[in-house]
């Protein structure tokens, strides 16, 4: 494919050289027609076609891109190892909540809040778009009298959701990844959210880390204390809560409130860690495929370069020989 376009370029150029006399103008016009030359870039004087110089420049830039993406992949791999351990340890933290309260994504609620967890930096494959797609789907699914509200963690999610759902965004938190995620930081964020956002349920949307190649978009549902109290009466979904003696506060409602807040912080902690793992894993595979693409491109460019080099050598030889033959014929 590359060679045929090169040959076409040669025939176009030879047509030009026959029609226009001065060499300078042919250099100018060939910069518009020559494949491989961008506008404004002049072929060096005396060169004939998709010049080897230009292909060489392209090869240099593709090689440096390849090195950069390879380095980014290794950085992502080492970061992944660190976060993965934390994520697995945090899984045990929210499981007792699910054992006690169960997971009821279909719980009745009027004020829905959708908490989307996304990354701050890009180049991490499709995980942010997946999260945003799911958030929008949740938004339409949870349509009740009041439209649902968004709380967004992470720069990329904010950018994508701002485009069409700007008026539904209640709160945005960015730059979380400046320091490694820990529980204190997450409980502060959870505190802020609980203070400023009214909700019946919060649905946390994140990418659960399955393995280095599999990221599962998941939703964790957290009911508010009032909903817990309502559902724990007879006939509700949290009926088994009634069998527990509740101590440790002035009233059952106070304990349930603390419980719900703690559950929210624990779930958010696990969700952020899992999403961070998925981000690193997705970045690893994205950088890996771009390194592979870069080496393929480099191979094609090398062939192109060699052909152009050989073609220019051949044309010079032809000129010399035809000049010598013309002299001989004249004498």
């Amino acid at each position: 494919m590359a060679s045929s376009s090169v040959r076409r370029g040669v025939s176009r150029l030879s047509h030009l050289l026959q029609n226009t006399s001065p060499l300078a103008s042919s250099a100018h016009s060939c910069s518009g027609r020559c494949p491989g030359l961008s506008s404004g870039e002049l072929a060096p004087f005396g060169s004939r076609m998709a010049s080897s110089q230009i292909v060489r420049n392209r090869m240099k830039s593709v090689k440096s891109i390849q090195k950069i993406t390879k380095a980014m992949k290794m950085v992502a791999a080492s970061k992944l190892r660190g976060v993965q351990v934390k994520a697995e340890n945090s899984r045990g933290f929210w499981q007792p909540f699910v054992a006690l309260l169960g997971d009821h994504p279909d719980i009745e609620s009027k004020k829905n809040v959708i908490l989307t967890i996304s990354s701050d930096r890009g180049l991490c494959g499709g995980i942010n778009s997946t999260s945003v797609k799911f958030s929008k789907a949740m938004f339409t699914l949870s349509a009740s009298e009041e439209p649902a509200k968004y709380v967004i963690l992470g720069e990329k999610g904010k950018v994508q959701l701002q485009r069409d759902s700007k008026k539904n965004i209640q709160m945005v938190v960015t730059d979380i990844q400046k320091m490694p995620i820990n529980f204190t930081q997450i409980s502060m964020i959870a505190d802020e959210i609980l203070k400023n956002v009214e909700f019946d349920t919060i649905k946390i949307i994140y990418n659960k880390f399955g393995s280095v190649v599999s990221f599962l978009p998941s939703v964790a549902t957290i009911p508010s204390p009032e909903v817990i109290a309502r559902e724990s009466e007879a006939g509700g979904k949290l009926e088994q809560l009634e069998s527990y003696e509740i101590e440790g506060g002035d009233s059952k409602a106070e304990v349930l409130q603390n419980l719900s807040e703690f559950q929210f912080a624990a779930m958010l902690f696990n969700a952020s860690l899992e999403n961070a793992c998925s981000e690193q894993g997705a970045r690893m595979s994205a950088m890996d495929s771009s390194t592979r693409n870069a080496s393929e491109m480099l191979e094609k460019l090398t062939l192109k370069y060699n052909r152009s080099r050989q073609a220019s050598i051949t044309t010079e030889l032809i000129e010399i020989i035809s000049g010598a033959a013309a002299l001989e014929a004249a004498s």
Partner: protein
Amino acid sequence: MVLSLRVMAPNRIVWNSEVGEIILSTNSGQIGILPNHAPLLTALDMGVSKIRSGGQWSAMASMGGFAMIDNNQVTILVNEAEVSDEIDPIEAQKDYEVAQMELAKAEGRKRLIQEEEKEPTNWIDPLSKALTFVNHLPRLQE
């Protein structure tokens, strides 16, 4: 009959074994848990819990959390916890003093940040006016 106890912090499992008796400190007092206790859900205060395992009592300091007891399974979720035999008293004393200094510094900075939060409203209005003026200037031809 024994109780199977799991104590979990956000980043690690602090205790995971079978014990004979637990004494928890909640904000309504101390509760003793023996095998075959009724199902219980309680909030824990920041304090020391005592655990008897194999005739020996050990203490565990915890930074608040929740305890759930059901069917001889005790699950305690805490913000942070340390078992007494992992704690070195001299280091703990040093950490305490460092923490007190940091707290004093943080309080000072918190007050500074709160003062700064009142400031921005002074310069945001003229800045936004300047920006809207710039946007309305005719664009230069490229």
